[in-house]
Every structure is written in C-alpha cells, then in structure tokens.
C-alpha cells in the first residue's frame, strides 16, 4: 500500500482536463470565499468587544444583550458554514471528483 501503486497516470493531462478545471474553479471560489467570510466574522467578536463595548452591552430582551447574542451567533455561523460546505461538497465536488477518479487512467490516452 505504501509505495508502489501499479498504475500510470498522466497528471498533466488530468490537470488540463476541463472537468478538473471546472472542479478546481468551483472549489477555489467557494472555499476561499467561505474561509474569508468565516475569519472576518470571527474577528468581529474580539474587535467588537474591544471597540464597541457600548453596543455589546445594549440589552435586547431581559438581561440578554447584543454581546451574548453575537457570541452565540458565532457558533451558529460556524455550524452554518460547515453545513453549507458539506452540502455543496456532497452534492457537487464529490460527483465531479468521482468522475475524474474513474477516468484517471484513461485521461491523456495512456493505459
């Protein structure tokens, strides 16, 4: 299992294959976009706590204030990102890469 997998694959041809290019483009945009959003959203919490303490202290209902709701929203957003990613990956990326895996040895014309 470790070293010798007895297949010859033309990696250049796979990378050049339009299906790989489509997978790559879709993944890149989606993943890095989600990543940037998540990180920005996360850092709003310490930034807000430090520079907008008045806003965080504002009561929404009963003793519940903006700060507590915002901290809880961080959990919901993290789970939401995981859910959105999983749905897209299960529905789309897995199918696209399954095709490439199936045809890996044929792409580029080598056997």
């Amino acid at each position, binding site marked *: 299992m470790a070293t010798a997998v007895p*297949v010859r694959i033309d990696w250049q041809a796979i990378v050049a294959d339009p299906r790989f290019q489509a997978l790559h483009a879709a993944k890149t945009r989606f993943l890095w976009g*989600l990543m940037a959003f998540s990180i920005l959203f996360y850092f709003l919490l310490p930034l807000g706590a430090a520079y907008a303490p008045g806003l965080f202290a504002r009561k929404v209902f009963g003793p519940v204030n903006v*700060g507590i709701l915002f901290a809880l929203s*961080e959990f919901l957003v*993290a789970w939401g990102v995981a859910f959105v990613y999983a749905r897209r990956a299960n529905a789309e990326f897995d199918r696209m890469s399954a095709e490439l895996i199936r045809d890996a040895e044929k792409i580029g014309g080598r056997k």
Partner: protein
Amino acid sequence: MNRKHLAALGVLAAAAAVATPAFAQGAVAPQWRWLAFSVFGAIIAATMFVTYLAAKRVKSAADFYTAGGGVSGLQNGWAIAGDYLSAASFLGIAGLISIWGYDGFMYSVGWLVAYITVLLVIAEPCRNIGKYTLADILAYRNNPRATRIVGAISVITVSTFYLTAQMVGGGVLVKTLIGIDYEISVVAVGVLMLGYVLFGGMVATTWVQIIKAVLLVTASIVLVIMVWSQYGVFGDFLSNVVADPKVQARVAQILGDASKGMTPEQLGQRFLEPGLLFKAPIDQISLGMALVFGTAGLPHILMRFFTVPTAKAARVSVIWAMAIIGGFYVLTLFLGMGSAMKVGADQIRAVDPGGNMAAPLLAQALGGGADSLLGNFMLAFVAAVAFATIVAVVAGLVLAAASAMAHDLYVGVIRGEHVTPQEQVKAARIATVLVGALAIGIGIAAKGQNVAHLVALAFAVAASANFPCVLLTLYWKRCNTGGIVLGMIVGTFTAIALVLVSPNMTYPKPLKAAAQKVLDGASVRKARIDTDLAGAADDQAKAAVAKAQAALDKDVAGAKATLDRFGKDDTSLVGLEKPLFELRNPGLISIPLGFLAVIIGSLLYRDKRAEDMWDELYARQNTGILAAKAAAH
C-alpha cells in the same frame, strides 16, 4: 505476550493510583476518596479492555499510526473532540466564565472557529495525499530528507510544549481534586497512556479518545440540565445570574472603586458584558489568529485525518467534531455561570486561583454538597473524567511525536525508507516508549512551573511554522523545499523567541518591588489595626479587625516568599528586566513572518522536482485519485 504485558501495566497503573502513601487535602474529602477511586477504576478498566481488544488488531505500521485507515467519520469526529477538548478547555473555560463572565465565554469561540480552517482547506487534501504524518505531506513533492527533518523537529517541538502543559496541568489537577501526590499522578498518567499507545497504537488511542469524549459530553449535559432545572433555561437563567448576590459581589470586587454608585442589577448585568478580563484587544486578536490557523497545524489533529478511509469521511469527521466541540462550548456558558451562582467565585478561587475547579465544585454542590453521597459521587465522576481527558490527550500527542521520530526521522531519513514492516512497527513502539518516558520526566521536572502559556505557544508554533508550510505546499505551485525549510525555521524560532521576551515570562524585578512595597506598608497597616482594635466596641468590630490582621499576615508572608524565591535574581529566564515584546501571544507577528519565510525561501531556491510534481499533487489533493483506490483495495 501482549496480553501479559498489558495486564502487568494495568496492575502497575492501578497500584500507582491507589497505593498513595501521602494524601494531601483535595477537593474530594478523605472519607469519600474510595468513591473517586471506584469511578477511576471503572474508567481505567473499560479503556484497558478496549486496548486489549485493539492490541490484537495492530499488526502493521499503518495499524499502529493510523488504525489502518479503518476509522469511520463519526468515530473520528468523536475522537477529534476527545483529542482536542483538553483539561484546559474542559475545566479552564468553565472556570474563566465563572470568574470573569462574558470574556470567558468569548474566549471559547476561537477554539471552535478554528475547525472551519481545518474543514475547508486542510482535512480533505491531507487525507488525499498523506499517509501517517505531517511531514509526509511536506515530503510529497519536496526533498524528502530535508523536509522530513524540519517537519519532524517542528512536530516534536509542538507536541512537547503541548505535552508538558498537559502533564503538569494533569498532575496539579489530580492533586487538587483528590490529593494524590503530584509525582504519582504524573507517573500514573504516563504509564496508563503508554499502555494504550504501546499495545493498542492508534486503534486504542482512538477508542480512549471516543470514550473520554462521550464521558465528558455526558457529564456536561447532566450538569447543565441540573443547572437549568434550578435556574431556568436561557433568559430566566441569565436573569438569575444578574440578580445573584455572589455574582454582583464578584463584579464589585473586579471593578473596585469603579463600582461605586452602581446598583446591584447594574453590577450583575456587567457580568454579561465584555471587558472584565481582557484589557488589551490586540492580545485577543493575536491569540485568535494562533487558534484559527494553529489548530490546522497541530500534528495530533492532522494525524487523525489519516485514520479515515476517504476525503468524504474526513469531511464528515470534522463536521461531527464541530458539532460536539461547539455544543460543548455552549454548555460551558451554563457550567461557568452556574458555578458562579451555585458555588461563587470566592470559593472557586480559594481552591484554585485559576478557576479550574469551577465545574467539579459545581458538580459537588448540585449533588447536595460536600457531605452528601450524590454530591461526592458527582465530584468523583467529574474528577475521573478530567483524569481520562488528560490521558486521552496525552496519548494522541505521544503518538504524533513518536510517529515523527520513528516514521520521519528513523525510517525516512536515517534508513532511507529501507525497512521491513516488522522493523517499522518496532521502531514505532521504541519511539513511543522514548517519548512517553520523556513526557513523564518533563512532567516531574517541571513541577511547580507556570506552564499555562505552553498550550498557547504550541498553537503559535503550529500556526507560524506548520500551517504556512502545509497550506502553501498544497495550494501554491512555486512552493518548494527551500520555502518549507526556511518557513519551518523562521516560524518556529520567531514564535518561541517572541514568547521568551513576552509578558508570559516571570520578571522578578516588578514582583520584588511589589513585595517590598507590601512589607514597607505593613507597619502602617499594623498601626491602623491596633487603633481599630483599641476602638472596637462589639464582637462584630473585633471580628473585622481580626480579619484585617489575617489579611495582613497573609500579604506579608506572600511578600516574604516572593523575595526569598527570587533572592538577588532581577531578570527573567533570558536575562530581561521587563518584556521586550508586549503581546502575550506571538501569532500576530510570527504567523505573517512564517508565511513570508515560505514565500521568500521558495522564490530564492530552484527545485525542479517540486514543480514537476505539482500537477500530481494538485490533482490528487483535489480529487483523491489513488487515495480512494488504495483504500478500496
């Protein structure tokens, strides 16, 4: 053969845990200690049984390092949670919340958000191209010798920092909880962990982590339900927090003079607002960066992704881990604030100034207090879960460090991959014993040291060295051996160097000055106490004077101890009188520097192999070609 050794280890561990000659006073009172040992014994027996079953399945190096890739996504998710929720996060965050309110809860968020990075850009590519270790990923298209050496050194460094914090924290924790001697608990943790890893490899380690995570989550849910039944669920719960006299007194204590003129409700409400603990926002941001990027570079977390068969299973495992870890941190809000009401910050801090005893004391109080069977059973259960937590985290760390030593350095570099399968397993086991002995040795040597910042340092090194190297070799075509070597060196050294000159270190001069001030002011305080005593009319006034006298005696004794401890020593470990660098966590500086070093190193170095192999790596990390094939056969 295995079975006999395993039994011997079990007996040894049990003996170390039970035959304790000197009991100090712990949170569990002596007459209830049998209860703690029964729960400990039950957990140890269950994990030993799992190890016995696992030992039969560990035949190859792949079994030992990665459970043969046969762990399911759900199992791995629980194991990741078990690997990640260390005693520091279990007891530490509940403690921070109980003492500092909102800021403690805010602190917990970063530990979950970190998994977004792991999920989106690290877990699946690593599963697709990796084998056993972090260095396997780095060596894929680069010079294997050079990248394995720097990769393994970094893995061992990060794991050792983390390990030291766990061993010392664990020793102190067990001592505080049940009063077992520090050295004995360090040895017990070390021997138990060695038993799991040595005989059961990753199979047993995985199951120990799963069992621990299930116990931890169960304990937390039970406690939170009990808290809710007493104080209400969300809005009602928080109203009770605001109205609680203990919470109000704590806030008044933190704010000092600033609390004058605030109504009790305002004081209670202040507990739910930011700013009681964290004063320097930039520190929070720096720590946040270390968490969010460092988790993805922690070797023992990365290693968990090699235990599942496919990228899809890796994805499933991160999602489960996020659900478990996030759910747990939400519960800590109720555990922390619940113990702030039920137990009170004063009492929590009296047992442990850092607040680590908040959850155990809450368990005892909810069960009916220090004299009740249920209260002590619950305390014993939480103590045993804390103990299982330390053992499970330590097992994962030792396995990661041992795999770097055996697989990367010995098999990869020294033997140039020319080893038989039997030799590989043997090397893995020898490395495990070495790392385990090292962990016990460091744990005992570091007794009494302040190691809390070592976990943050482990994250900082992982974020500044491992993360840039792994990310760029996976996603940037031009990245090569030169970049990996420079990035690892610069990332590791800047992170460590910045911590060595940071406020985390102990600076004797200001401490000694403060102690001297206390001693100088003692006579004035004494004079005031004498006047008060002369004028004290009733018993109440006399009691107040006696209290002031006791506080004075305590301050003077503390100041004298500080002066004695440092003697003529005026400087920190690296010879500084005051910090050169003001951030407690170096991430803000060292992470960008790590990335920069990988980029500069790659641009300055020509490496044809790295570029030729790019298409192969990039196609494989994106699609899982060959990885899925290897798993299917």
